[in-house]
């Protein structure tokens, strides 16, 4: 029940964001120099930021970009984890050891430092969309090890189950076994991993953006929008500056409730 409510609210938020983005004249990058750091007006329902951009549209784009990017990165990371975990479980012990050592290696790397390092070494001329793709790709590339370990354990248990032995005895090839029997049984493990990764990636992107190492301007992202809180002048003029934080917390709470339910 709670899960359904969360899904519906999340879907409504995404739908509202899509509508706001598609409204005539809506632009996340257009600057209105006449109205800078303003509160709600007839034209800008959530006010404008410190360079006169529509905050409402920017938050809507940030919702779509954050959720879309994090979901895509989570899907990639879950797929990598499923592949590595299943491969380790079905291959020779030496290969399994190497793969698990690789996952240990990735687990030993401090995430944020690595993200900062890779992100900071991107070319200075990186386009905003390219920086968004790179940020989420890095997140996806670094998020798989913990999930891969869980998948490896799960697959090992499945591998020694009686119905798998029966399947092998019946002459099913490893690929067939994986596709028809192992993957469907791993879904209850992979779905929560995916759901855990989505809010984790959103938070990671927000933290990177707060440090100025996330998605480049003018593309709106959670991290870039949270940087507005540093500007005490805009905080004094309008309470709408808090809108990105409120929406971000709402999205994360909804995602968290989905994870808890699963």
């Amino acid at each position, binding site marked *: 029940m709670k899960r359904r409510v969360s899904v519906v609210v999340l879907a409504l938020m995404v739908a509202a964001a899509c509508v706001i983005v598609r409204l005539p004249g809506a632009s996340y990058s257009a600057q209105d120099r006449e109205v800078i750091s303003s509160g709600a007006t007839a034209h800008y329902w959530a006010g404008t930021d410190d360079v006169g951009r529509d905050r409402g549209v920017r938050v809507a784009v940030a919702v779509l970009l954050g959720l879309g990017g994090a979901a895509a990165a989570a899907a990639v990371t879950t797929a990598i984890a499923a592949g590595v975990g299943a491969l380790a479980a079905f291959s020779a012990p030496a290969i399994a050891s190497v793969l698990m050592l690789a996952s240990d*290696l990735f687990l030993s790397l401090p995430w944020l*430092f690595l993200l900062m390092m890779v992100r900071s070494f991107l070319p200075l001329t990186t386009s905003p969309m390219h920086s968004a793709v790179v940020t989420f790709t890095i997140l996806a590339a670094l998020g798989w090890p913990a999930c891969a370990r869980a998948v490896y354990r799960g697959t090992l248990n499945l591998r020694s189950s009686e119905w798998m032995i029966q399947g092998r005895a019946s002459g099913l090839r490893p690929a067939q076994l994986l596709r028809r029997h192992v993957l469907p049984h791993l879904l209850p493990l992979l779905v929560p991993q995916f759901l855990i990764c989505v809010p984790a990636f959103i938070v990671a992107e927000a933290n990177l953006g707060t440090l100025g190492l996330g998605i480049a301007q003018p593309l709106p992202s959670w991290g870039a929008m949270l940087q507005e809180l540093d500007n005490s002048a805009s905080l004094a003029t309008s309470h709408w500056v808090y809108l990105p934080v409120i929406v971000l917390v709402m999205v994360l709470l909804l995602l968290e409730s989905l994870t808890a339910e699963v």
Partner: protein
Amino acid sequence: MRTVVLICRRLGRTLLLLALVAVGTILLMRFAPGYFSDAREMDAKYAQREQTELHQEEATAGTFGQLATGTFGGWLHGDLGSSRQYGVPVTELVRPRLRVTALLLVRGVTFGWLLAVCTAFPASLWRNGRTLTGMPFTLLLAIPTGAMATLCLLADMGGPVLVLSLLLAARDFKFLARVFNTAWTAPHLLQARAQGIRFDRLAAAHLLPHVAPQILGLATLSIVTALSAIVPIEVIFDVPGLGQLAWSAALNRDLPVLLTITLLMAAAVSCAGMIGPRERMVQTA
């Protein structure tokens, strides 16, 4: 004898991991698409001269071998190389900041754990305790560290230690409450409670030894979480620690400094992993 072998094996694995982390980090940096791009390139005034300098740098330290030799040479020399940004030995930059960060971590982890244990333990004794007590922690969990630190700064309430403590408490509360709850309902504890054994004896003799390995495992994860959180916290609160130095090095593409801090953090994570009983932890989670 078996314990010694186990310790040696873990130590060897940790050292191997650290060596791989070092090599991986250098590889990653060297082949990052903009490794040789520099802020000076953007300035037309310096473009020609700086381009030449950058090309010279690429020629002298461009390959992985040259980069690795330079880095490991700096370590063997004892000064961890020279900072590209400040032009001083990395040890001079890292040493004073290490103490600041260590102090912040110790305080943050201690207070965070106290908060988490002090709320999770009573909550586990109460039927709806976990749900009700967990609400504020769930809310805290939904606020990114950077935003939490900024909000604290704006409200002029609390400092880096509070933010780190709240973050860790929020992360650990649910797990701790579940561990305590499961332990309380274990058959041997139910039997002991039915026999009327005093609460303090019950907790000291039966509950704590039962949950200690899982708590130790969670403690190692807390260290990892805290290490990741120190960057935004130190940057926002202007704490002169390693996190702030790493951020500054990242913005200025200072490879030797960033590499040293990344390896220090990786060493801390690996050592924390050595202490924790990982297998049991994974099963319980």
